[in-house]
């Protein structure tokens, strides 16, 4: 039991890390990873939704009729997404402004619906939480790594939290010129492509 629990948790961190191994949920991956901070914020919001929607779907898996299961999952997911949206507005308003439309769009993130359908609806609540937490943390890590690559190359800074960079290339070398292509939309595709290529060089097992 404990062993399989650990397995469900750790698979999301490496073997099935969502954007790189499953290649799922690419919309927020491409759109919000301009800074590490945005990546962490988006990842944490998605993790919250994943854990609680997994928990509820798993708890209600014997009650929800098969024919309307997708509608039920969407109601559950949308409820938690709206809660995240309101809480972010109340407590991290500047981050909410930066992530904007991509917070409500977590509803249609295929990772969340995918875990509900593929895992939570077939497993007990504890396993479902472990799965949601693992996949969510994996998603947060991926977004942060891509955010770090793009922010470092594109702006020369690394911003972890609160809008102030913890590292600024301009203070290291005054002749540093940021490669601003990387924080534009095409840079997201190039950055993601390179990370995917690197991940494919490393065997998943």
């Amino acid at each position, binding site marked *: 039991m404990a062993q399989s629990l650990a397995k469900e948790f750790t698979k999301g961190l490496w073997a099935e890390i969502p954007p790189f191994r499953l290649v799922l949920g690419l919309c927020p991956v491409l759109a919000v990873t301009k800074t590490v901070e945005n990546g962490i914020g988006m990842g944490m919001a998605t993790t919250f939704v994943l854990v609680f929607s997994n928990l509820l779907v798993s708890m*209600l898996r014997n*009650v*929800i*009729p098969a*024919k*309307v299961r997708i*509608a*039920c999952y969407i*109601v*559950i997911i*949308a*409820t938690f997404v*709206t*809660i995240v949206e*309101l*809480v972010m*507005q*109340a*407590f991290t*308003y*500047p981050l909410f*402004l930066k992530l*904007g*439309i991509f917070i409500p769009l977590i509803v249609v993130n295929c990772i969340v619906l995918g875990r509900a359908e593929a895992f939570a609806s077939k497993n007990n609540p504890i396993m479902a939480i472990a799965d949601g937490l693992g996949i969510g943390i994996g998603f947060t890590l991926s977004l942060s790594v891509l955010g770090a690559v793009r922010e470092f190359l594109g702006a020369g800074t690394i911003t972890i939290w609160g809008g102030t960079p913890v590292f600024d290339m301009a203070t290291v070398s005054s002749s540093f010129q940021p490669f601003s292509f990387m924080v534009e939309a095409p840079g997201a595709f190039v950055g993601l492509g390179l990370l995917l290529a690197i991940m494919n060089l490393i065997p998943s097992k």
Partner: protein
Amino acid sequence: MREMISMIVVLTCLTAVSGGLLAAVKSGTELRIEEQVLKFQKAPAIADILPDVTNDPIAERFPVTADGIELQVFPGKLADGSKAVVFETKGKGGYGGDVGLMTGFNLSTDKIIAARVTTHAETPGLGARAKDDPAFVSQFSGKSTADNLALKNQGGAIDAMSGATVTSVAVSRAALEAQDLYKKLKPEIEKQIQ
């Protein structure tokens, strides 16, 4: 038949619980969200409109009612001693809902000091330029209550932003409403401001 009823019952219960939960969260966070909007949206806009006031417009804000309209008003004392007032109006029909516009009026000349876009959900790079690039809203600066603040193609004096006509219309609607409200509420505001 049994299956049908169970589908209806489960979905109804689920949506009812979800609705109740969301109502609770919303009422719990409402006050804090309002504070955050004031701090991060309205305060910077007011500071842009009235850069050198001798008082604190946020702390001295007061509600004004006339003709059944209630409005939160931010008073400002200008450096030359004249008084100004800033308030927000919502322009209906933006691309992503209402567009908030803060407009500042000089109480002695009745002219608009400046205007700034606050809350909006317009497309980044197109409609959102109304907020990010003050060139468009700066057209309102210096206009008097007699000027027509509609867009040029509607007989007004304001150039629309290219590629963002819908947003431009919403902003100009908010400005027209601000002008209208200012005319209606001026006696009441002056009474309270002394």
